[in-house]
């Protein structure tokens, strides 16, 4: 212990750690009946850490070419010791991360935590969710199997609908006119370099904002929060968060052992598209909506109109801290509360209906 004390002393002399210690010692998390919502952010971050760790392990064997990608994943899951576990955990963790991120976003939304002065936290969180979905979209193609190949073809084809820049965007994403090995290589680049770098930067900002501003307490819970003793961040909240993380770890282990992620069959660009191509579940609500739209609506291509509506919807969601004026003074409008429920019901409803085969 003396050695540790000496080390701390040495560091303190050089870096003046006292203010940090002071900050940490006094950092608290409010306690009220919805305190459970505060765990979702950390839970999402836990899955992100799992992604980084398992992703690095997969990188040791994965080869990002059309010729070798499928075989390398096959090698990982059949020959590499515990490769099946690493790959399966990576796939499951990706899905749980997005699920947790959605839960985090909606809990923040319904508690009105996006309002001033936390606009930047909301915006950085919004961008982080976008990046997470980008991780999912780019990672889906990497095993280079039949389903992911054709789903990527459909998915990337949507950007071609973007007015003016559509054709260029399509070529940029695919690395050519079609989904080929060039697409795989650049998706790999996005997945392991571009997206992690952006995510790390945004995550650092997101966390810094939260540390600086502290946890938000909704106006309706302020009284309760004042009455109850807050939870000390270190070590109480951290230990509680540890319990939640262990729960996540247990879920990952069980899912990986009982439901190993399928590999499918190798992509064959010359074969016809298999029946039932679907994107990952978190894109299903958009996918099914676009499928339901008629070819032309009001003289505009249905798909283009749908994508436009999603873009507009996304913009409104992004700008909620600005649009919901009442939220700034703790009196959020009923309209935005209703909007949240409608969006949640729409996403959950369409996703489940898609799994139930309602849209077949």
């Amino acid at each position, binding site marked *: 212990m003396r050695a540790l004390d000496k080390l701390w002393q040495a560091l303190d002399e050089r870096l003046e750690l006292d203010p940090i210690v002071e900050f940490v010692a006094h950092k608290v998390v409010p306690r009220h009946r919805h305190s459970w919502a505060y765990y979702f952010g950390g839970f999402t971050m836990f899955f992100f850490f799992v992604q980084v760790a398992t992703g690095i392990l997969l990188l040791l064997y994965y080869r990002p070419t059309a010729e070798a990608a499928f075989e390398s994943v*096959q090698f990982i*899951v*059949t020959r590499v010791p515990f490769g*099946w*576990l690493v790959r399966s955990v990576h796939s499951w963790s990706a899905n749980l991360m997005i699920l947790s991120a959605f839960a985090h976003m909606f809990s923040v939304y319904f508690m009105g935590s996006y309002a001033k002065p936390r606009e930047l936290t909301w915006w950085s969180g919004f961008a982080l969710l976008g990046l997470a979905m980008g991780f999912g979209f780019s990672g889906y193609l990497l095993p280079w199997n039949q389903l992911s190949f054709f789903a990527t073809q459909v998915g990337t084809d949507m950007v071609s609908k973007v007015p003016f820049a559509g054709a260029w965007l399509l070529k940029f994403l695919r690395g050519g006119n079609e989904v080929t090995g060039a697409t795989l290589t650049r998706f790999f680049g996005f997945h392991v370099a571009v997206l992690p770098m952006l995510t790390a930067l945004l995550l650092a900002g997101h966390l810094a904002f939260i540390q600086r501003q502290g946890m938000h307490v909704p106006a309706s819970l302020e009284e309760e929060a004042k009455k109850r003793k807050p939870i000390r961040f270190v*070590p*109480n909240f951290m*230990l*509680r968060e*540890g*319990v939640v993380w*262990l*729960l996540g*770890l*247990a879920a990952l*282990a*069980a899912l990986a*052992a*009982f*439901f*190993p992620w*399928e*590999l499918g069959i190798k992509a064959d660009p010359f074969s016809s598209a298999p029946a039932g191509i679907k994107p990952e579940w978190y894109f299903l609500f958009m996918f099914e909506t676009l499928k339901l739209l008629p070819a032309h609506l009001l003289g505009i291509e249905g798909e283009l109109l749908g994508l436009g509506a999603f873009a507009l919807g996304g913009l409104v969601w992004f700008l909620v801290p600005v649009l919901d004026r009442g939220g700034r003074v703790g009196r959020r409008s009923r309209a935005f509360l209703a909007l949240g429920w409608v969006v949640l019901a729409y996403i959950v409803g369409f996703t489940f209906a898609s799994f139930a085969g309602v849209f077949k």
Partner: protein
Amino acid sequence: MTRQLANATLAILLAAGARAAVPPAPAGAPGKHADDSCIGCHAKLDDVRLRKPAELATADIHHAQGISCAGCHGGDPTSGDPTVAMDPRKGFVGKFAPRAIPEMCGSCHSNAAYMLRYAPNIPTDQLSQYRTSKHGLALAKGATDVAVCSSCHGAHGVRPPSDARSPVYPTRVVDTCARCHADVALMNRYGIKGNEVEEYKKSVHYAALTEKNDLSAPTCKSCHGAHGATPPGVDSVANVCGTCHVSQLERFDLSPHKDAFTAMDQPACEACHSNHAIGHPQDSWIGVADKQVCGACHSAGDAGAVAAATISGALSKAAASEAAVRERVGRVKRAGMLMDAADIKLEEAHQSYVMAEVEIHTVTVARVEKQTQAVLAATSAADKDAAAAEAEIRFRRTGLFVSLAVIAVAMVTLALKIRSMER
């Protein structure tokens, strides 16, 4: 007039007495006719029999190549006057008699130099083959109800056989033959049962053609010939089947059955497999019991029956082994394991099994057993893979429960720690 003649109908002659037996062979090749009054006039006629040829002409391969009506019917197509255009003195022939049709078609199709100008890749021996066919021989004897060129290819609107709309396209040729060969009364006159097409439609060959859309599957003409259509004799059945089933024929030639069948005047493959209603061969056919094919010649206790029982036993063992291991591997796959290596071994097993079935044609026990042993070796290797995968599943589940226990202990410890701190 018979149906065959009706099929052979070309245009009804307007001029009297024009049923010429044999059309004058074109002096040289029929030329291309830029000015053609035939279609123009015939298309306007009220009589559908006379209008139809003009309507069909546009889809005709000959018409597309620039060979007009006069190419076959003669006359002067440049004249708009029917009496001039269809003047017999100008070589005009109206409706052809059946006997005239093969010669008329052959006047171009047997002319190799001429055919080079239009279709250099098609054979030019159709007429000579036809003359040797059952159809051609009967025609030469004066029969008028036998197939001539137009019976199968159509008279007008002739399409190349590669065109899916052609009556001789693989998927349609069976029904084209059936137009006559399913007519029991007509066939009985020639000593044919008339149920051949019906039987053929029960066969694996027809199933391959219609269900798998396998255009290489044998149709009537594959075994009987097209232009030289004739039933294969007893001594040529094996060669006909062996055109596709090469390996089986090679084995059959090595077998004692070859000479025995010849001596007994038995048609080789047909003796066990039948002819038209050829079903998928079953291993259960092997033996001398009721409904088993060996029993046709062998009796219980003779050398052939003993060999059949040994072969049947070896095949059954191999089949059972393959099925059992396939089931086990499938079960492991459903549990989420990748079993590509086992799949390859099972594929090898199946290949050996197919080879064992081919070796049956040698009726040599040792040769069949060599393949069934290979099946057992491959299935055994696949079974080991399945067993290893099952062990791996058990290991993973045990590992999971150990991990979950460790995680649970850690969670409880943390919870207790939190509780003690917050007390």
